[in-house]
């Protein structure tokens, strides 16, 4: 209950003060360069990794990236760069 309240207040504040959502609300920021790169900021860890499928934990839910020949180019505590041929990007909400 408390978590929901916190989220509501955050959302309201962000809207009222016109702040960027990713900063305020701990959302991931995902940047893609064509099908070549996907750059995920603010992730919470790697769940599964194979050359065809990558599953990344986010603050809420998961991100599923499908494609071919995946290589994690670099990985930092909160960012990662994935390389390969990206075909699908899916949000999975439990």
């Amino acid at each position, binding site marked *: 209950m408390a978590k929901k309240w916190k989220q509501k207040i955050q959302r309201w504040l962000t809207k009222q003060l016109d702040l960027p959502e990713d900063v305020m609300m701990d959302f991931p920021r995902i940047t893609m360069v064509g099908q070549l790169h996907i750059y995920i900021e603010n992730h919470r860890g*790697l769940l599964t*990794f*194979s050359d065809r499928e990558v599953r990344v934990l986010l603050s809420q839910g998961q991100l599923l990236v499908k494609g071919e020949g995946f*290589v*994690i*180019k*670099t990985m*930092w*505590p909160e960012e990662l760069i994935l390389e390969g041929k990206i075909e699908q990007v899916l949000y999975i909400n439990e």
Partner: protein
Amino acid sequence: MKNLWFKRLFGSITVKLIGIGGERIINELIRHHVVIWNVKKLQEGELKFQMFIKDVSHLRKAVRIHRVKVRFIKRGGFPYWLKRLRRNTGLFIGALVAFIIITLLSNMIWKIEIKGASPELEYKMMNQLKQMGVKVGGFQFLVDDPEGIQRKLTAMNEDVTWIGVELNGTSYHFQVVEKEQPEEVEKTSPRHLVAKKEAVIVDYFVEKGEPVVTINDFVKPGQLLVSGLIGREDDKQKVSAKGKILGKTWYTTEVEVDLTTEFELLTGEEWEQMTLDFGNFSIPIWGFSTTKYKHEKVEKNKKELKFFKWTLPVAITSKTVKEVEIHTKSYKKEEARKLALEIAKKDLQKTVPEEAKILDEKILHEKEENGKLKLLISYDVIENIAKEAPIIQEEQED
């Protein structure tokens, strides 16, 4: 942090994880702020990635929690490169020693050549040079620069007019001009003596030939003074006329003297510094004072290192910074005039022959402008005005 160029510098390893749950290891590493890159799945249950060597301890801890097999596949980067180099130490040391030897040999003195000196002077100079450190087998950077050697040698040898010092690679060449040249046996052809310049004859002294002018004659340049044809009118003989004709000549000199002059005086305050220069970059190795004087005079002495015939961009520079005080001195008009006359006289003495005598000086014109005193001075000088001129063939036939 985004750029991983420094991964070469710190050294990295490629790690292979065998077993299910390699992702958990990666998460564990990430949680401890370990950077990893090039994560690849080789096949089911096999993960490969690269990381810094310094983070290996984190990997060990992570493996203790999640049991997977770890293989280190490849090592790369600077530390390993250094290790490999250490294995080839012998070769490395050899190259270094060779370089040092060649550098030392390039900076040695291999040859000393003295030209134009008599045997005894040459011997004397060789000894003097040896005392200065200039000897075969000596090091160039331990001796003075050629100008300094030149100065010292000239000071030591009074009987030498000029010594030229040239450093050519590893050999020193000395060109000596001795004052007392052996007197050449004069073998002159028949000649007249003619006037060199406009003058009034004051005195003459003729050894050979027949004077055709007398005292108080005014002569023009090229005018015949002593004839080389002597004897009776019909039977003239050619001789080589010889003698001195002293004539009064005139010189005008213009001098300018500043009524106020600035001159520098050393106060005695100074500091020294030695630097090791690599190209334009210099590292102080002695003397770290950076005292700034209001007015200073910097003396620099740069010794460059040589390799074969090339100069290496490595040099040792010694620098002395001396404090100076600038004084201004202003002259009164009379003082300035006196000074101007002195300067003019010195100038004149440089231009006239050595045996010439200055008789009289007269200020023709004096002008003061822009803080300067301008003087036009005329001098009466007595000098030898005789000049040899060959007897022209036609004249003889007449």
